[in-house]
């Protein structure tokens, strides 16, 4: 696997891409895990390692501090903490990976939200000695809220609990019950020692009782995309292509990235919010004509009728078109330093459409630690997660976030200075209502309808 002596063959054969995020408290060993994944997949280069060694010596450290590999900013190195999301890249024979490396500090919930928003998998780290703590529940809640399809619980530092199965089993059971109660569809628990290398890349010799995959093996085999047959197609129009040249006098194509589902030539479609209907006459996938195209392909769609369609419109199959609305009930994570208040005028960016909006109400603020709801907080401050009611100036073709991460998500933007205020998810906050561990039957909810 990654110990192959032929890195060229190894990296060149990788075909698919998996985006995943890591989450862990400050001392859970996240940097060590990330360092080991990068190192064992030969993604740390000699010159980068030399730079880290030199910097470590310069600080009087005896061994190279691998955190310096990932802490790219002056302020991070000075303070010895990670303050911002960084994206890292590595490859194995089976797959390419984009890792959103998110800081673990409580005050950086927004960073985990940022990392999780594009992730197909989240790795939540737990220290085997401490078990499930508040921060673990917070990470699980964010993964559930963002509807990350796959969650890995990495129970780290097993070497410090004598590789004892009961320790792992108890933590895995508690976490799985909690995450399942939030509707996390798939949880894989893996006992590891990032420091000693147990079950990260190579199977552990110390834990015969564990028969599951290593972290890397799981990352390599988890589905990176989903069966789209049950997903409703959504195509936000980004840009209208009209060459008006001698060669293409009448070409009018609607360019965009398919947000969910698949589009087919000949399909009856409705354009929202106008409600006009037409039929797909052709699909161009970046220069090649195709009969079918699917998310997340960037394509150009041509229709049989010359309709008035522009950036911000949404094309959807007539049979499954969303109902436009001006009233949005959503969960938001507040990401700006200034507060979000009831009555505030904002801009709402949904797919390719940005509209004026007003915050009508903030019915509750969520405490991630215990998922309790605090009614009518009046405002949300940085890193708060809360329910909001928003009225928009124009109708939006909005889906529930549960049905589509792409067409159910939006940003709230400060119209005065352009600051991104909040990350919004339309509809219900969690896939399942919170239950106590005792009430949970342990079976994961049906994945049907989840679209990534």
């Amino acid at each position, binding site marked *: 696997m990654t110990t192959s002596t032929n890195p060229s063959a190894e990296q060149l054969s990788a075909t698919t891409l998996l985006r995943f995020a890591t989450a862990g408290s400050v001392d859970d060993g996240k940097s060590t895990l990330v360092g080991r994944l990068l190192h064992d997949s030969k993604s740390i280069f000699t010159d980068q390692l030399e730079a880290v060694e030199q910097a470590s010596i310069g600080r009087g450290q005896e061994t190279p501090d691998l955190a310096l590999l990932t802490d790219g900013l002056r302020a991070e190195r000075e303070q010895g903490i990670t303050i911002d999301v960084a994206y890292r890249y590595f490859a194995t024979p089976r797959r390419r990976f984009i890792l959103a490396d998110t800081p673990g500090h409580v005050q950086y919930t927004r960073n985990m939200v940022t990392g999780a928003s594009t992730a197909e998998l989240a790795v939540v780290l737990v220290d085997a000695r401490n078990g499930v703590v508040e921060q673990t529940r917070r990470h699980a809640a964010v993964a559930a809220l963002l509807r990350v399809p796959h969650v890995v619980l990495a129970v780290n530092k097993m070497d410090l609990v004598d590789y004892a199965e009961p320790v792992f089993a108890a933590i895995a059971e508690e976490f799985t019950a909690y995450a399942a109660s939030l509707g996390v569809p798939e949880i894989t628990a893996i006992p590891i020692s990032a420091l000693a290398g147990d079950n990260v890349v190579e199977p552990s010799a110390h834990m015969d009782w564990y028969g599951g995959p290593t972290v890397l093996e799981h990352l390599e085999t988890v589905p990176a995309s989903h069966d789209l047959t049950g997903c409703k197609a959504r195509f936000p129009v980004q840009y209208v292509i009209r060459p008006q040249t001698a060669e293409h006098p009448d070409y009018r194509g609607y360019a965009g990235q398919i947000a969910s589902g698949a589009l087919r030539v000949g399909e009856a479609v409705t354009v929202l919010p106008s409600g006009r209907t037409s039929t797909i006459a052709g699909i161009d996938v*970046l220069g090649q004509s195709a009969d079918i*195209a699917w998310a997340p392909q960037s394509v150009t769609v041509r229709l049989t009728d010359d309709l008035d369609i522009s950036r911000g419109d949404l094309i959807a199959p007539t049979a499954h078109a969303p109902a436009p609305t001006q009233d949005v009930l959503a969960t938001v994570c507040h990401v700006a330093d200034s507060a979000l208040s009831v009555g505030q005028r904002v801009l709402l960016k949904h797919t390719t459409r940005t509209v004026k909006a007003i915050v009508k109400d903030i019915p509750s603020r969520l405490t991630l630690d215990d998922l309790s709801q605090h009614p009518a907080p009046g405002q949300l401050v940085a890193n708060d997660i809360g329910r909001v009611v928003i009225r928009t100036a124009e109708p939006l073709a909005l889906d529930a976030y549960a049905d589509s991460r792409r067409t159910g998500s939006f940003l709230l933007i400060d119209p005065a200075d352009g600051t991104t205020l909040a990350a919004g998810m339309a509809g219900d906050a969690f896939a399942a209502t919170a239950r106590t561990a005792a009430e949970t039957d342990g079976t994961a909810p049906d994945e049907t309808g989840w679209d990534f």
Partner: protein
Amino acid sequence: MTTAATVTEGTDSPFALSHLDALESEAVHIFREVAGEFERPVILFSGGKDSILMLHLALKAFAPAAVPFSLLHVDTGHNFPEVLAYRDRVVAEHGLRLHVASVQEYIDAGKLRERPDGLRNPLQTVPLTEGIQQHRFDAVFGGGRRDEEKARAKERVFSLRDEFSQWDPRRQRPELWQLYNGRHAPGEHVRVFPLSNWTELDVWQYIEREQIALPEIYFAHEREVFKRSGMWLTPGEWGGPKDTETVETRLVRYRTVGDMSCTGAVDSDATTLDAVITEIAASRLTERGATRADDKMSEAAMEDRKREGYF
């Protein structure tokens, strides 16, 4: 039915895109977002592989219409002639509009002073930022990739720059889903990095797949070079070799293309795209570690330059 994507085999669903298709689709989405939301975008074009790749993706994104962006080349005055010839050829072929910001003109006018070490890469920042202000560009595409360097790993796809073109890494907008926030005040602009998620290997594999033509110096050739700071540099009027440095003829190629004063060649016999890809995949050095002098100046050289407005 015909499909235009490479469907992959294995454990994934039949709708999985290959990693190159996924990266291509994402980059095209970014180009179209900028076209839809900005008034005066421009592509930074150096004639290097990353900017050539950007142009290729932009051409695909808007086909059969023309690319709705002009190009801006920051000319250090120490460019490889093969690269300038390539630049002019591409501009003519696609009927593009090229702006040139010239470091040499700034030096000749007394607005910039030559550095004692002769490096001109750090001098590009002023002509670049003044060029942006002068033409009132509001979105500036750069070919920067997060895998290149640890400060770039922290860079957003849409990166807001103030009226002085400064990057403040602690005040970056969180980037959520694929919802890029390009709002900016007059005088500010947004740097856009459509290749953020590509690695050097992805770039080469895509160039091979799409059969994109490159300047010939990317492939192994006999060249007169001399050694300075562990790198093979090409002699020229820019200031080399010194008396103590000897010129020899070697079989080399370039992994990156930039200013002649700080871009080194690597020993190589890779004359084809296939051979280059095999060589890159086996290399234990990053392209910058192997061939860029300016990044070796300090632990935070790139961050510091980016703060000042460098791309």
